[in-house]
């Protein structure tokens, strides 16, 4: 009896606290803005802006600078006559999301902050905690910024529009491109092999397998246990360019794991439960059985795979165009004879299947209590238009220019988002390529990042042997170049997935379904369960445990 009373008391207290905290949230949002507000930075007094900031473990600040006091922040404060204070800082990911939730439950939102999911944005909108940005966007956003958002065919702004109102500044995410097959071309040479005989920079699945076989048999670096191809334990990734995943193979077979899309008949489909996915698994399984795929598949960690490459045990890796910058660099550091060449994996029709990225997954929101929502748009203009297009600005703020050259992390900016056109990667590369070929000049390259890539590449070509140069040659003149080649020669077959909002059933069952999927895939490939039986029982299990309901819920979402 005593115990029961205690529980009652505890439950009542909890309910009390929750009501209080909700009340705390709601009360702040009813502000009337009947008084005229001065918006011109030069004419009004200094406005204090509090921010929720994402941080990174390696911001690369020059000594003395910090998140609250750095060149970007100083420039913003001076240009817009504001005083920036951090309400909270936390590392991107769980830590940051936790701080956002805490701020929400304590009813104290910063003036502006980044939210990392559409669900959070919807929740903020429904609770009337964030400001309507429609008017300030129309009035203050520069034409250049508007042009960037327009390059996504309306997908970018549609994502943040609720009941006809723009409720957030969306970050843009351009298409990641295909998951490339990076091959050690110095091995190909030393073993006297021929890869890609027809020179179309594409490989079929069989060619990949034969090459892996040849690398194992040839073992050019006399490694103890040569490995053909290694993959992550969770095999697939929702991002088309998934690194260390089987995405390239699955895509070539017309399977788009972890993504929702409409199939040819117009039915909403989840890529991981399709017959094509089964075929992809059967291919990887046969490679595994033949010893072409790492026999420690499933237990090899990310770092272990990296060490396979650096030790010369493995010479093939699947990944995005930018892996030379942060993963293959380890290979070059240990062995500067290493050279990689990327190839695309093609389907039977000779096309490269690829999926469009979710145009916006991250947002900047402005608190409903904040009197100067236009400042958010002014910051947007300053960083994503002026800083890119106005060279006088960088002359005025040499600190900022040196930040760009030194590669100080993007988290140092007030908004840690990217706002770039859908085709920026290829556009910038076109300028870089022209400059490198002597058909253009360095000054014509639009961004500081690409200009410093130009310098590194030039220095490497002149024999510096510097690792950065090696990286940029690989990521730009090979990786992005392949993407450009695929686009120019119309080799892509684009699929536009549906990126649904989290549904009720997803909230309760999605984590389980993901585990079910990953466990079954790895079991099928390693032969722990039979391919036919295992896959079929996985599909029926997936449907029964919520997959079917979720599909229905997403269809309902799409009809709205």
């Amino acid at each position: 009896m005593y115990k029961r009373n205690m529980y009652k008391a505890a439950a009542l207290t909890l309910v009390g606290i929750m009501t209080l905290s909700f009340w705390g949230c709601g009360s702040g949002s009813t502000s009337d803005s009947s008084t005229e507000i001065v918006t011109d930075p030069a004419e009004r007094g200094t406005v204090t802006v509090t921010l929720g900031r994402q941080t990174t473990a390696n911001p690369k600040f020059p000594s003395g600078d910090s998140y609250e006091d750095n060149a970007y922040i100083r420039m913003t404060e001076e240009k817009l006559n504001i005083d920036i204070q951090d309400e909270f800082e936390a590392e991107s990911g769980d830590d940051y999301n936790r701080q956002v939730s805490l701020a929400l439950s304590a009813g104290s939102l910063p003036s502006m902050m980044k939210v990392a999911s559409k669900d959070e944005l919807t929740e903020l909108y429904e609770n009337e905690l964030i400001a309507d940005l429609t008017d300030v966007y129309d009035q203050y956003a520069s034409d250049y910024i508007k042009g960037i958002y327009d390059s996504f065919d309306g997908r970018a702004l549609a994502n943040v529009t609720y009941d006809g109102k723009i409720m957030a500044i969306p970050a843009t995410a351009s298409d990641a491109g295909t998951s490339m097959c990076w091959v050690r071309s110095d091995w190909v040479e030393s073993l006297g092999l021929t890869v890609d005989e027809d020179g179309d920079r594409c490989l079929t699945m069989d060619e990949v397998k034969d090459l892996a076989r040849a690398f194992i048999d040839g073992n050019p670096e006399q490694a103890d246990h040569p490995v053909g191809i290694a993959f992550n334990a969770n095999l697939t990734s929702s991002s088309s360019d998934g690194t260390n995943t089987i995405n390239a193979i699955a895509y070539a077979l017309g399977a788009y794991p972890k993504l929702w899309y409409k199939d040819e008949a117009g039915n909403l489909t989840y890529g991981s439960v399709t017959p094509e996915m089964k075929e992809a698994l059967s291919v990887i399984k046969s490679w595994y059985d033949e010893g072409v795929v790492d026999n420690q598949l499933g237990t090899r960690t990310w770092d272990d795979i990296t060490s396979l490459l650096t030790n010369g045990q493995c010479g093939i890796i699947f990944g995005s165009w930018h892996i030379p910058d942060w993963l293959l660099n380890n290979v070059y550091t240990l062995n500067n004879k290493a050279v990689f060449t990327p190839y695309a994996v093609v389907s039977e029709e000779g096309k490269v299947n690829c999926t469009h990225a979710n145009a916006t997954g991250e947002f900047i929101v402005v608190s409903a209590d904040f009197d100067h929502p236009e400042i958010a748009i002014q910051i947007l203009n300053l960083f994503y238009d002026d800083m890119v297009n106005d060279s006088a600005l960088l002359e005025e703020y040499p600190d900022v220019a040196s930040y760009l050259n030194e590669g100080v992390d993007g988290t140092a900016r007030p908004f840690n988002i990217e706002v770039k056109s859908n085709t920026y990667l290829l556009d910038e590369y076109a300028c870089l390529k022209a400059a490198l070929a002597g058909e253009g000049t360095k000054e014509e390259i639009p961004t500081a990042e690409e200009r410093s890539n130009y310098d590194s590449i030039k220095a490497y070509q002149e024999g510096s042997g510097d690792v950065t140069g090696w990286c940029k040659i690989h990521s730009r003149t090979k990786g992005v170049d392949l993407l450009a080649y695929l686009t120019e020669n119309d080799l892509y077959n684009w699929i536009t997935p549906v990126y649904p909002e989290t549904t009720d059933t997803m909230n309760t069952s999605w984590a389980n379904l993901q585990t079910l999927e990953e466990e079954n895939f790895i079991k099928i490939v390693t032969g722990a369960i039979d391919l036919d039986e295992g896959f079929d029982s996985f599909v029926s299990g997936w449907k029964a445990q919520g997959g079917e309901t979720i599909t229905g819920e997403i269809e309902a979402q799409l009809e709205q």
Partner: protein
Amino acid sequence: MIDNKGTSARIRNAIIHLIVIILGLICLLPLINIVAISFSGSAAVTANKVGLLPVDFTTLAYSRIVSDSQFWRSFGISVIRVVLTLALNLVLVIPMSYAMTRKTSEFRFRNVYMNLLIFAMLFNGGMIPTYIVVKNLGLLNTIWALILPGAVPIFSVILMMNFFKGIPRALEEAAIVDGANPLQVLLHVMVPCAKPSIATISLFSVVGSWNDFFSGLIYMQKVKDYPIMTYIQSLSIDLQELVNNAASSSALENISELSNRNLNAAKIVVAVIPLLLIYPFLQKYLISGMTMGAVKE
């Protein structure tokens, strides 16, 4: 242990020793591996070549730590936190547990307080309500947010209570007959007798507050205010996680620069040293402290 002469006893002893040695190695080897990694060249670390001995011996990682100002700032915050927490814990726990050992005839509401303690030990408000309390008290971003929520470790109170109960009543009565007031009894009779127990709860307090990273993540909203374990936690990077979340290429580049594991290993080693230094001084009390408190008279 009583009869070491029999063969079966010897075999039994050998097996027990073997098990203890294996368990000891399981605890020790990862630590040695971390130390070895911290002294190895980063190339060897990336290639997974470091076992128990450093490969390509270098102290480069340590010289980089010396120049990491945030590391030392966080280190200092943690030292201050540990000292303050320890002092506050002892000041609160010792008198409290002494009072709680009084009979109900002397301390009428003893059982009420005891129930409150037990209740608070088993249930708490959860993360968000606690956060709101800390925030509304104005403690956010101050060192007190790391100290006050854990100022009275109830487990330590119970440990001390059991220990005090084990001290012969006669000692206390003798002091009272000599005219000592309750405070004098506590300070001059009980505390000196309870040294092993105090050492035990001190160690719990120090280890607990030094190793705790989570409260730093929640209550410290600026990276510059992080205590050392929170800072080190923020350095441990899961590249795979970042790649899956489609981080931008330049962000990945900056992160991967840091993910050289030997630097992180060196940071872990430096962060563990203070505990290793304290432990030998307290260890001799530790074992007796735990067991002596366990038996009541």
